């Protein structure tokens, strides 16, 4: 039985793990970098150890140092959180070798999940639908044309050495394909001296829908419903919700069965996520497995009533799942907004620095996972996620209106945040109607709408702002003209 867990992470996810451990009477060991002396995870853990400099490579990614702390502190398990070492199979193997219970899948399973080509092959074998295309590299333009005709146009020609839009062509007929094949090949050779091309079906107006999955060491597996995470910027999720507006009970079960097969195909244990693209025609295509607890797990907790960290601990302890698929019922609607320190108008560039003041929203069916506190600092060394604001509702609209009220209450001084953008999105008809897609922000011109909303907000507040400015000016003048500068004196004087 796990009695002491080292959390090889920082920020809100470290706090999340500590919270469940504390409740269960399990001791926790925090590790921290030079940048994190005053972070909440240091303050809330049972023990805390300094492990190095601010740069992740010198602290949170330093496997040897973390292992030293585990061994010297008598830790029997490690929770990797997300990011950092969470999907590093070398670290999982290092733990296995040192008899530290790694709370996650086995190193081999993690390795398989991380290898896109091998994982895709395993999925095809398990009849898990993947994006249609060449099973491997295509031989030549004619081979590509044959595959394109099999899967139907439009298709994407992709050099496996490409990236950043180079070495990619979308083609809609045989002629374009033949031309495109030449272009992609020459682009790739020009860039890296070689070329290797695959063909994949091009999907328009896709949604990102993923399934929480869960499998114990005895082979029992369930899915814990889907999450729709289509609202993204630069392929990073901003807003997630469950259920998805395009998944009904029947679809949920259909894809859920596929998810269980996917977990079995890679011998996955512990909690994880199977990610899918959903094409506009309703088809689901597996993309990858995230072999860890995900950022957006709270919304699945809210509709399942489960404590996922406890579930992870139980599975790591070798216990069988305490439920069958038929015991699990989805209850209500949940939304998560990722509160990032970033400037929407500077293409979401990070915004860091001290946070002298912060007001965390609360209230019925509101949950906020965050490392923020008044006087904390948002560090440039780590990712921009400051808080995960989640709301639950018996209906989607209850969840949505609670989120809007909570966003209104959320105040973070000192850094730019994504809060205003989320208010614009959640108030839009497209969001209300569930018209989601991974290009949502561009498709519906959300940044322009945000600009309008911010202007309107300022207009609404202009009288109050002016009143504050007028009073402040008088107050300042009085401090100069009056011997005693206290505010009460000033009030008496003006009276």
């Amino acid at each position: 039985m796990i009695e002491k867990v080292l959390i090889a992470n920082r920020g809100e996810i470290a706090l999340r793990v500590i919270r469940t451990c504390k409740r269960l009477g399990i001791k926790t060991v925090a590790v921290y970098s030079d940048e994190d002396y005053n972070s909440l995870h240091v303050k809330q853990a049972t023990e805390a150890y300094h492990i190095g400099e601010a740069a992740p490579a010198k602290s949170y990614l330093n496997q040897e140092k973390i292992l030293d702390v585990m061994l010297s502190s008598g830790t029997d398990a490690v929770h990797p959180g997300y990011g950092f070492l969470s999907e590093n199979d070398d670290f999982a193997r290092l733990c296995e070798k040192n008899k530290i219970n790694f709370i996650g899948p086995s190193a081999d399973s993690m390795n398989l999940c991380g290898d896109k080509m091998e994982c895709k092959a395993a999925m095809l074998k398990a009849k898990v639908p993947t994006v249609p295309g060449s099973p491997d590299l295509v031989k030549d333009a004619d081979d590509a044309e044959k595959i394109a005709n099999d899967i139907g146009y439009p298709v994407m020609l992709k050099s496996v050495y490409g990236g950043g839009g180079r070495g990619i062509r979308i083609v809609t007929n045989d002629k374009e394909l033949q031309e495109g094949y030449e272009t992609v090949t020459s682009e790739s050779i020009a860039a890296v001296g070689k070329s290797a091309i695959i063909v994949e079906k091009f999907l328009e107006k896709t949604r990102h829908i993923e399934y929480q999955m869960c499998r114990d060491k005895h082979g029992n597996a369930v899915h814990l419903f889907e999450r729709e995470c289509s609202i993204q910027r630069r392929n990073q999720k901003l807003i997630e919700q469950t259920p998805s507006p395009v998944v009904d009970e029947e679809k949920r079960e259909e894809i859920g069965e596929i998810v269980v097969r996917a977990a079995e195909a890679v011998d996955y244990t512990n909690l994880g996520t199977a990610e899918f693209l959903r094409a506009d025609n309703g088809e689901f295509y597996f993309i990858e497995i995230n072999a860890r607890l995900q950022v957006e797990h709270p919304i699945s907790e809210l509709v399942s009533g489960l404590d996922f960290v406890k579930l992870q601990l139980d599975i790591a302890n070798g216990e069988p799942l305490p439920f069958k698929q038929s015991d699990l019922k989805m209850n209500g609607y949940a939304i998560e907004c990722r509160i990032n320190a970033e400037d929407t108008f500077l293409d979401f560039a990070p915004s860091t620095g001290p946070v002298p003041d912060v007001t965390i929203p609360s209230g019925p069916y509101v949950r906020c996972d965050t490392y923020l506190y008044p006087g904390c600092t948002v560090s440039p060394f780590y990712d921009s996620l400051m808080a995960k604001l989640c709301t639950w509702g018996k209906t989607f609209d209850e969840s949505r209106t609670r989120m809007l009220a909570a966003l209104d209450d959320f105040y973070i001084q000192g850094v730019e945040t994504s809060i205003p953008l989320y208010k614009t999105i959640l108030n839009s008809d497209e969001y209300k109607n569930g018209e989601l897609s991974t290009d949502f922000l561009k498709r519906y011109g959300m940044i322009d709408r945000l600009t309008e909303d911010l202007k309107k907000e300022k207009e609404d507040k202009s009288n109050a702002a002016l009143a504050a400015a007028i009073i402040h000016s008088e107050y300042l003048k009085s401090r100069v003209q009056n011997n005693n500068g206290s505010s009460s004196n000033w009030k008496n004087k003006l009276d």
Partner: protein
Amino acid sequence: MDYKIQDIEKSFDGKITETLGNNEYMIKINDNEHQLKILNISSKGIEFILDQEYHRAKYLEQSTNAMNLVIDNVPVIINMNTHFDDVVYKNSGGGGAGNAQLALKSQIPGKVVSIAVGDGDSVKKGDVVCTLESMKMQVAIKAHKDGIVKSLKIKEGATVAKGDVITDIE
């Protein structure tokens, strides 16, 4: 006084028109009068009820001509002319008739942000001698008379109290 809110086209005229006692005031903004009751005030911010509605303002950085504040969680930048430099100037002896007073005294407490002159420099009445930061606002301290700067008493980064001598001007 005239005010302009960044990103909003129209400009505003605003002033206190009446003090009602009990921390209540009448304020006129453009053509409309509003009742304002102060609940709390400090150099960091103000809480007040304006026409029965509660508001909270936090003052962030400001200069004498712009104020950066957060009103009910909404950040706003207001451009204005406070004439605050003038008030400080008058109170430090500037603008008066008598030229006898040597000492230039600070009329506000603050931190010395920068010093514009050195011992022996000659200054004209109204020249900036130094800049203080007080209540998050930068205020220029100006010479109250023509003369030569003698025995400058301040250092950059140090704090001065209200009434402290900044320098003599002979």
